[in-house]
């Protein structure tokens, strides 16, 4: 019976502690933030690569317009969701500068995805070649950023 009482107190204390700490915004540790950032950058890079492949296929007349539009809308949505998810994570102090760089690059990438979607919906086919080039450059810089983020700030290439 005494054991049960101790157990009940422990459970109550855990619930209260969880409730109190759950109310405060948490700061993830460095590794956790790097993991989140790497995933977000990787997801946005995937969306950018998908948009590029779709636009290239469309230039070669391999894709119906409705399909291209659906792929671009999805790419913009998934890229935007990944960027938003990271922007709501509090970066640790040591990563604040890189966090700002990551936010900037993700914002540029999602902006480019939006631009591509607008061009596709508007049937602005003259823009496709330029968009493909810019998407390719953006994907490549995001992939470099993803590699850099796997190491702590001082060790990044």
């Amino acid at each position, binding site marked *: 019976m005494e054991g049960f009482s101790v157990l009940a107190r422990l459970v109550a204390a855990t619930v209260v502690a969880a409730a109190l700490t759950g109310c405060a915004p948490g700061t993830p540790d460095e590794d956790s933030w790097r993991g989140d950032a790497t*995933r977000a950058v990787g997801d946005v*890079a995937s969306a950018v690569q998908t948009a590029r*492949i*779709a636009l290239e296929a469309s230039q*070669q007349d*391999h894709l119906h317009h409705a*399909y291209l539009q659906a792929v671009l809308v*999805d790419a913009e949505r*998934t890229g935007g969701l990944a960027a938003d998810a990271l922007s709501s994570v509090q970066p640790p102090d040591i990563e604040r500068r890189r966090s700002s760089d990551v936010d900037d690059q993700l914002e540029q990438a999602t902006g480019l995805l939006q631009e591509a979607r607008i061009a596709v919906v508007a049937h602005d086919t003259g823009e496709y070649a330029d968009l493909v080039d810019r998407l390719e450059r953006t994907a490549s810089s995001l992939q470099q950023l993803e590699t850099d983020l796997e190491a702590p700030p001082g060790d990044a290439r």
Partner: protein
Amino acid sequence: MKKFFSVALGILTAIGGFVDIGDLVTNAQVGARLGWSLGLVVMVGVLGICVFAEMSGRVAAVSHRATFDLVRERLGPRVGLLNLLGSMAVTLLTFIAEIGGVALAIELVVSVHYVLLVPLVAGLVWLILWKARFSLMENVLGLVGLSLIVFVVALWQLDPDWGHLGSQLVTVDKPSDETWPVWSYYAVALFGAALTPYEVFFFSSGGVEEHWQVEDLTTMRLNVFIGFPLGGLLSLAIAGCTAVVFGPLDASVDTLGQVGLPVAVALGKLGLAFAIIGFVAATLGAACETGLSTGYSIAQYFGWQWGKYVKPRDASRFHLTLIIVTLLAMAILVTGVDPILVTEVSVVFSAVALPLTYFPILVVANDPDYLGEHVNGRLANGLGMIYLVLIGVAATAAIPLMIWTRMGA
């Protein structure tokens, strides 16, 4: 000659009907990230569904009763209820994913948001379940689903490094930038996608709907042991296509539109048109099968009159169940929940529910009161036991791996 055509038709529909939204999405995701390093899991999963589908088909042909009609009688109402709840939850989740999959596939053609298409798709599914003849539904959707063979042609046209793909397949060569927990998570997801519980519900109940007899056992076995493995080849082709197009770019696959892109790259508009038709037929066929499976399971557990061969007024509770689950699926999808996410969750929970589905089949298939001389032989029992162990491992590991890897993130 008639017999030959009947067997050929059965095999073709088994191939075309094998792939559903879970196979499409999971194989495409795995191909992009892990190439063919999980190809053996697909093969093991396909052999598993063959083993248990043959057992449940044999039960239907010999006893003229669906397997789960017998589970409650053989194992008692408590075990029967556990079996019903576990399998039903997964089948319902799969039903939602399939209806969402049809809407997503149509969205690729009409540029209308899938949420707006969901009520139309749900209505179409219900209409097919209400009006279409069983054989017509199975044969037409199965045959049209064969257009997914375009993925095999596309893979050939993409001219992959066959040596590398083959080596990945045989040596389970995981890409160095992926972790073993992620690899294991996708292994469980692929296994769950191949062995989805509804497939055996539908197969055994369908056998009763089509009045299988003992003489039909050979045809049934040919359908299972030729049709299902060839259907499994389509899964490997889908994974191969995304491995070639997305793998080198380190890009992940998160949407149905991405699944079809490699076909467009390889074969252009015509190939893509076949792929989209295949998506619609595969998901619509599976939506009908999962919808019917929910009705079959509930009606068989409670002892109601069931089946498409019975007039709706004589099987009113069965048809009411179909209406309710269709409305429920529609209501959940119109909230805007991502059907791809539902699919990802459904294949993992399918792995969790596998023992609840497959253990009772093994018990019933060993009962001479129901099967007489057609009870399981040594081979069927040996394979069944091996698969029960594999299923136990997958079911135990599924949730921890899902949490640990954040759904393979």
